[in-house]
């Protein structure tokens, strides 16, 4: 979802809804009615089926067989949806029972499934379609009902909308035995779990590796690592009570939660598994559900009946609450890491050290390895053999951001000048001098740490060694003591053996009717006048060395001569777009200060000149070609800023036609939507790269512009694409200008070549990002800025040595914005391991997700999206299964045990799977998908992290005085309290969600209106008010924006408003309207996959 999108029409959302409701009705009919809260879950329902697609078979089948056995109602509930159980199970780790309860929605579906057993599979597979018309209507009815109900819940103190109802429900539980039982069960499990330390301990043998999710709940205290658990506490006030209810059978067992579930059924074991997780979580974060499923299946059926017997009301309440808290919570993980590692500087001296999470603010001290701001690896401990690596399936990848901007308190890399002979390198592998090189023979020679070749030390570089074999001057030389540094390149490193000229920026402005009409041209020209003073400059330079040029175009191109000696700019029209060339040389690229008067005059006149234009057609390829030719003629590298509005349909090379076809989605041909229409763009990109011409594309489309094709050139040249759909000056001005300013001002390296060298044994085999490769080793980047990231995958060549570890050296040759040719070197040493456990212990999930997302997003170019999703799921399952099999202490098969470092893998992976690219909703345009796809390709780890799992910040929870950012809550509707206000951001979008029952005072102080109903939905600017809350919120928004590379436009969303659907799209733990699974469901599914692999 791009912020850009105009507010999506209601219909799409509405449609999906019906589907879900259908489930409710069928299954719960009665219950649903009571379950009012279900509404919010509506989404869930949808997703669930999604999951089931895969599982369905299993489920549908399983149920029957097991169906008979399942006696206990509780189980039944779980069983209905195998996932549901899993989810529950997972949840249970912490609040297992709660999970189940929450499942309600899920359970409802179960009900439905139960009813029409045969139909289940069908329903499940098609995410959307399942509901029959009848169902739909019924659902609708249900929805309404639920909605009606909802209002009531708010009263509940819990923050969550749904929960409230639950609370109330819980309250009721006691009354109704059945109901009570569930909730109780949920609650109890937690408490039980806590109580069952004993059980946990056994598992703990491995604990360190895996974090247990469950620990949280009430047990929180015990299991510090358990993040998820914390939540449980919420609902638990009651749980204890409930426990008893459930406990009837389970309590005694260590696995109460499970028991609760199973309890009813009688099959405790599965329950245990579930429970265990709850308990065990401490150890591995294993989820009890593992086993559960099977039994569960059986149970579900029975459960259904029970449900039936039990009136709807109870169900809704219990399930919602507990579930999420039990499963690993990203928020908790992030917070823990922040607390544990945010205080101490991260010192890079130690090999194979896992850095703090990207979400943690920490200081880096370079002591020989590159800062994690430059390089992050999926694992800091590499398996010694390829067999091991294959077994683990953990991708070995590094996410490299060579020109990353550092916080002000960290020093940027030192520049080293080795004089005329150039940087010292290994003669064989050409690796650059680095701290890992071994000096021998008294310092007369050095052995390359990458290829072991022994090289002579040139006389001018000679230095004696101390008693440890270290050069005496090691600490005087950055290249001998630091992980990152720069060399001044000699002329040998320059194109044509000539030092480069300073680079140039060329602004190429679409002046067709659309651009003029929206006011874009005027706005842009006005902005450029001042922006040109802020071109990037190097170090302390007084003025930027960068020269600028201007081109406007519609279906012909207009070049401008802005030579300082002219009184007026001169326009040169080139209409021969079929065979583009640059009509002038002198006066096209100029120094801003020298030609200021002429440039100002030009920028004043451009909007006037084209004010009456009727030209609607545009060209594209010739524009870039022109810019590239201009740079070629000027013999320099540079960047083109292209401001483009429409599909280039004018007769010219690269002419496109509208080929947007939503019918292709979910077919084998879907991939064509991501592929460029013609090869002309790639060819052009190649030429651009050869010239060091980077393209930044700003798109202002009113309709389909074929981003997939247009973004090819920016993508391959290391540029950026910005998209402002339906651009209106009033609404989008700030966002565009902010992005533009940032883009123009940021420091860029030009005409760059990056090469990643590795020590013997591994080899860089694959690269992801915005660049071009003409051979298999050199990453060519026409331009590279501090935001662009290259992900590199490694494979084994040979056996690695535990002793020596594995070394990476990333060398980036580039031209600085002052025209200086430099080499930036980043070195990183990794450990090697012979034990898989070491691998899993030193993984970084965020980086892993970064890699997997990029891998998947590239995959959609060539494979059907479904296949890509399946691959991801399979790989993830394999990773986790391998861990389970080789590293986790023995435990019941029903238990889901996750490595501590990867406990968030499922939730994050689910986010990737349900992202717009891999699972588009009805309101997502083809352009949006292509746009996001290419964006992600060059994102760094922090960006992918927040992009896939948005931050949801409660605004009124913490005291107004507190200056720290509020702690985020999990991205689920359940976490929203209708009495509160939240900010949600994912790096691209920023929402301010206002609960329906927010205090008037708050409304007044934020929006300056008297009531909730008077708040304008879709508002994009908060009024500037002089009160603490307003200041704080606006301050927070500003600081969020400052953290991101792109300006996030604010959208105010009111609860229950049409726009809310858009907002809900980002609540990634919930089921999505497009069929994406909820976290819980996915976890269950993953569990099942793992179990299949293990069996």
């Amino acid at each position, binding site marked *: 979802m791009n912020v850009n999108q105009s507010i999506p029409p209601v219909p799409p959302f509405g449609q999906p809804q019906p589907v879900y409701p259908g489930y409710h009705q069928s299954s719960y009919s009665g219950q649903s009615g009571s379950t009012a809260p279900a509404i919010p879950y509506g989404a869930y329902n949808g997703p669930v089926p999604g999951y089931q697609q895969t599982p369905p078979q299993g489920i549908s089948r399983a149920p029957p067989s097991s169906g008979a056995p399942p006696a206990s109602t509780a189980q039944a509930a779980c069983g209905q949806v195998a996932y549901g159980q899993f989810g529950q199970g997972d949840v249970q780790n912490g609040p297992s029972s709660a999970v189940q309860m929450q499942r309600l929605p899920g359970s409802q579906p179960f009900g439905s499934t139960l009813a029409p057993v045969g139909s289940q599979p069908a329903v499940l597979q098609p995410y959307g379609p399942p509901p029959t018309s009848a169902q739909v209507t019924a659902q609708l009815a249900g929805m309404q009902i639920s909605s009606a109900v909802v209002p009531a819940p708010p009263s509940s103190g819990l923050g969550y909308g749904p929960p409230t109802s639950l609370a109330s429900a819980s309250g009721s539980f006691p009354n109704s035995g059945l109901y009570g039982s569930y909730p109780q069960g949920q609650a109890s499990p937690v408490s039980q779990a806590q109580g069952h330390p004993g059980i946990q301990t056994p598992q703990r043998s491995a604990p360190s590796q895996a974090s247990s999710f469950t620990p949280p709940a009430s047990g929180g205290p015990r299991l510090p690592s358990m993040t998820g658990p914390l939540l449980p506490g919420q609902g638990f006030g009651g749980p204890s009570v409930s426990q008893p209810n459930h406990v009837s059978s389970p309590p005694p067992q260590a696995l109460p939660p499970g028991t609760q579930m199973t309890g009813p059924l009688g099959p405790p074991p599965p329950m245990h598994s579930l429970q265990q997780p709850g308990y065990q979580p401490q150890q591995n974060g294993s989820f009890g559900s593992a086993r559960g499923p099977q039994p569960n299946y059986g149970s579900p059926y029975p459960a259904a009946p029970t449900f039936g017997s039990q009136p709807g009301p109870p169900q809704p309440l219990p399930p919602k609450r507990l579930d999420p808290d039990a499963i690993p919570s990203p928020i908790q993980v992030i917070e823990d890491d922040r607390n544990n590692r945010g205080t101490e500087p991260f010192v890079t001296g130690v090999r194979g050290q896992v850095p703090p999470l990207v979400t943690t603010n920490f200081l880096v001290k370079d002591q020989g390895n590159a800062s994690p701001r430059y390089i992050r690896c999926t694992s800091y401990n590499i398996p010694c053999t390829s067999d091991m690596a294959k077994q683990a399936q953990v991708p070995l990848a590094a996410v490299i951001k060579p020109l990353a901007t550092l916080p002000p308190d960290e020093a940027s890399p030192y520049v080293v000048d080795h004089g005329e002979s150039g940087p010292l390198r290994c003669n064989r592998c050409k690796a650059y001098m680095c701290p890992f090189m071994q000096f021998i023979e008294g310092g007369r020679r050095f052995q390359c740490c990458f290829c072991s070749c022994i090289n002579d030390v040139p006389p001018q570089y000679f230095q004696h060694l101390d008693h440890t074999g270290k050069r005496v001057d090691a600490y005087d030389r950055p290249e001998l003591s630091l992980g990152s540094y720069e060399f001044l390149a000699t002329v040998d490193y320059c194109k044509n053996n000539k030092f480069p000229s300073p680079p140039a920026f060329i602004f190429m402005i679409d002046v067709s009717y659309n651009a003029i009409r929206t006011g874009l041209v005027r706005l842009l020209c006005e902005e450029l006048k001042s922006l040109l003073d802020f071109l990037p400059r190097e170090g302390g330079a007084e003025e930027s060395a960068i020269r600028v040029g201007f081109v406007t175009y519609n279906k012909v191109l207009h070049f401008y001569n802005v030579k300082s000696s002219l009184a007026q700019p001169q326009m040169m029209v080139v209409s*021969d777009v079929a*065979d583009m060339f640059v009509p002038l*040389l002198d006066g096209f690229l100029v120094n801003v200060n020298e030609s200021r008067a002429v440039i100002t005059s030009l920028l004043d006149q451009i909007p006037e000149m084209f004010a009456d234009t009727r030209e609607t057609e545009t060209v594209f390829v010739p524009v870039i070609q022109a810019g590239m030719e201009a740079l070629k003629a000027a013999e320099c590298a540079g960047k083109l800023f292209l401001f483009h509005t429409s599909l280039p349909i004018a007769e010219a090379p690269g002419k496109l036609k509208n080929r947007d076809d939503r019918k292709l989605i979910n077919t084998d041909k879907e991939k064509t939507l991501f592929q460029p229409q013609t090869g002309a763009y790639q060819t052009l990109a190649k030429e651009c790269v050869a010239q060091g011409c980077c393209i930044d594309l700003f798109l202002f489309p009113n309709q389909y512009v074929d981003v997939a094709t247009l973004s090819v050139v920016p993508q391959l040249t290391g540029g950026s694409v910005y998209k402002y759909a339906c651009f209106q000056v009033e609404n989008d001005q700030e966002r565009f200008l902010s992005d533009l300013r940032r883009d123009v001002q940021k420091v860029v390296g030009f005409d760059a070549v990056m090469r990643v060298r590795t020590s013997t044994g591994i080899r860089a085999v694959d690269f992801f990002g915005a660049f071009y490769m003409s051979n298999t080793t050199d990453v060519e980047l026409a331009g590279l800025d501090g935001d662009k990231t290259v992900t590199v995958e490694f494979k084994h060549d040979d056996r690695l040595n535990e002793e020596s570890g594995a070394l990476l050296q990333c060398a980036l040759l580039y031209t600085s914005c002052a025209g200086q040719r430099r080499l930036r070197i980043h070195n990183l040493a990794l450990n090697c391991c012979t034990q898989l456990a070491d691998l899993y212990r030193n993984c970084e999930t965020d980086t892993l997700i970064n890699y997997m997302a990029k891998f998947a997003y590239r995959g959609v170019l060539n494979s059907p999206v479904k296949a890509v999703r399946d691959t991801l799921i399979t790989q993830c399952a394999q990773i986790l299964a391998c861990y389970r099999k080789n590293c986790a202490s023995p435990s019941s098969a029903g238990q889901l045990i996750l490595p501590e470092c990867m406990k968030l893998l499922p939730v994050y992976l689910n986010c990737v799977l349900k992202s717009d690219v891999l699972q588009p909703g009805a309101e997502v345009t083809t352009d949006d998908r292509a746009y996001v796809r290419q964006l992600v390709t060059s994102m760094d780890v922090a960006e992918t992290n927040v992009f896939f799992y948005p931050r949801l910040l409660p605004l009124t929870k913490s005291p107004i005085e507190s200056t720290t950012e509020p702690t985020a809550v999990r991205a689920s509707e359940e976490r929203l309290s209708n009495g509160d206000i939240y900010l949600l951001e994912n790096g691209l979008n920023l929402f301010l969600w206002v609960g329906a029952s927010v205090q008037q005072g708050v409304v007044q102080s934020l929006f300056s209106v008297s009531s909730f109903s008077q708040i304008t939905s879709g508002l994009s600017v908060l009024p500037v008010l002089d009160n603490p809350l307003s200041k704080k919120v606006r301050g927070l928004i500003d600081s969020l924006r400052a953290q991101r590379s792109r300006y996030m436009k604010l959208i105010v969303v009111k609860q229950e408003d049409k726009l809310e659907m858009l907002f809900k799209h980002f609540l990634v733990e919930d089921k999505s309207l497009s069929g994406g699974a909820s976290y819980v469901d996915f976890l269950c599914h993953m569990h099942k996959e793992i179990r299949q692999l293990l069996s």
Partner: protein
Amino acid sequence: MATYLEFIQQNEERDGVRFSWNVWPSSRLEATRMVVPLACLFTPLKERPDLPPVQYEPVLCSRPTCKACNVDVPALIELFPSFQFPPAYGGISEVNQPAELMPQFSTIEYMIQRGAQSPLIFLYVVDTCLEEDDLQALKESLQMSLSLLPPDALVGLITFGRMVQVHELSCEGISKSYVFRGTKDLTAKQIQDMLGLTKPAMPMQQARPAQPQEHPFVSSRFLQPVHKIDMNLTDLLGELQRDPWPVTQGKRPLRSTGVALSIAVGLLEGTFPNTGARIMLFTGGPPTQGPGMVVGDELKIPIRSWHDIEKDNARFMKKATKHYEMLANRTAANGHCIDIYACALDQTGLLEMKCCANLTGGYMVMGDSFNTSLFKQTFQRIFTKDFNGDFRMAFGATLDVKTSRELKIAGAIGPCVSLNVKGPCVSENELGVGGTSQWKICGLDLTSTLGIYFEVVNQHNAPIPQGGRGAIQFVTHYQHSSTQRRIRVTTIARNWADAQTQLRHIEAAFDQEAAAVLMARLGVFRAESEEGPDVLRWLDRQLIRLCQKFGQYNKEDPASFRLSDSFSLYPQFMFHLRRSPFLQVFNNSPDESSYYRHHFARQDLTQSLIMIQPILYSYSFHGPPEPVLLDSSSILADRILLMDTFFQIVIYLGETIAQWRKAGYQDMPEYENFKHLLQAPLDDAQEILQARFPMPRYINTEHGGSQARFLLSKVNPSQTHNNLYAWGQETGAPILTDDVSLQVFMDHLKKLAVSSAC
């Protein structure tokens, strides 16, 4: 004979016509035996201050096949017996005779009132690959020219170097231009598309469709009335920069002349077809890229020479010529003309481009630099006005020639293209551009002269009655510089004579000057396509045959050979013609040859004769200035010579005079007469310089000066290093040449003429 001379002169004055024969042999056979064809030099726009404007349209012979205008009716009725008076003439009376019926008006000019008047168009095509001062001078000339243009004339500007820029002149503030790659050949359609000429350029037009008349004025942003954009264009020209693309050592600048011309042609074609327009190409070097390139940009490979051409080593010549010919034909078809102003020390490709000027009636000017008075004044002179205040130029003319039935039209030589109008009066034998009775002359000035060749077709056995006359009518439709359409009709008639019985008459009516020029034109025309020696041989043979026919001699006795007065000068003309740069390429570059031939083919008789045989005046203390023989014997130490070759004015100081001047006598009061003597030729030269177009190269030299070669190469080498007897005598200066002298030439001629062998 005096009468004939008077008659000829009178005819020329009145009608601008000079016939080779003023009495015509009445049979085909006899005519062919006359050797010199029946032909005339016709100057369509012969300046006639006395010509009354006739404000109505001509009346045509109503016989559909004839369509002759009814001038000089008595003659017509006589010669075109079938002439029928149109009804409009019903009211004619003795006192109210229309002008065309009065005999003295054998030439009459009608002014057509109807039809849209379209302004004149001047499209400057300017080379920017020039040296800084050259460009500056050119810019100044161009700026100056703006003030000379009629205020409502449309001007346009195209500049070129490596790229071609078409400047948009209407815009305010920012100056716009459309740029084209200089290497790409574009079709007219492409050019018009790219210039946005194919659809209404301004939306405003749709608002007022009711004014189609306005259309041409607004439809092109590239051509605007001078009075509107005077200031703008002046500034624009002032800001013109040298072509900014770097030229590396050892290279020529890349110059896209071919494309620039192509765009200019395409622009006018798309906007103002069939309207008087001049494309004025200013170039300072050879085209080095794209279509029409004449030489590559490697300086080490020199531009083609005659030697290369003979050896077929001129790589680009054929292709380039083809390109320019194509352009020239298109331009001619649209009624526009192309001028070429080429100023460079080296060749500029005139050889390839010549057709642009030749076929469209444009000017060709060659100079060393734009920063010379030669160019500046020549260019200025284009915009001189006649006594009526009109420019001395006309556009888009068609010349329609009609003959009485005894004659047919064989062709024309001059700045024209054929319109391919076949008719009963068109001969199958072509001389020059034939096969038609109509030609298009896109650019005309008052001296533009065509040679028109006829064939007598009357059979020997169908004698013409005594006193019968043959008639020829020239009808010239043209656009006057006042933008008015005009028709000038010239009707002439000449007596027939039977060559067998009245040869003397015919002989006496021979116009040797006209004949020489007409034969020379034929020779030059042939030389364009044939090998030089062949043409010379052909000329020689014609001369010998003529001498055989009209000379009086005893067979095999050269000494007895005599020619009558009316033929006496003719052999001498031929002698000099043989030595002229029109036929001799030795010592001339291909460009120079093209340049000379271009002018030879369009100048009137007087100028042409000067070109063939330069005029030499002698100044001395012995008497007033006198014309002297163009002979080495005229070069004497105590004389000052002034030679006018049309292209050059040479002032040559004899040895003694030069020494005197060196000694400074002219500054001494007591030798003021010497000062006057020195001044006299200068004044005379100035007079010639003032009058001539293009301005000749002015050479002031003296005995022993290097530039004296211009004189020495022209004079008849009667004394050379071979006839040693002349050495040391006071009879003139020996010329170091192996060329034959006139005496030798004449001796040979006589010998051959009297020989019965041929």
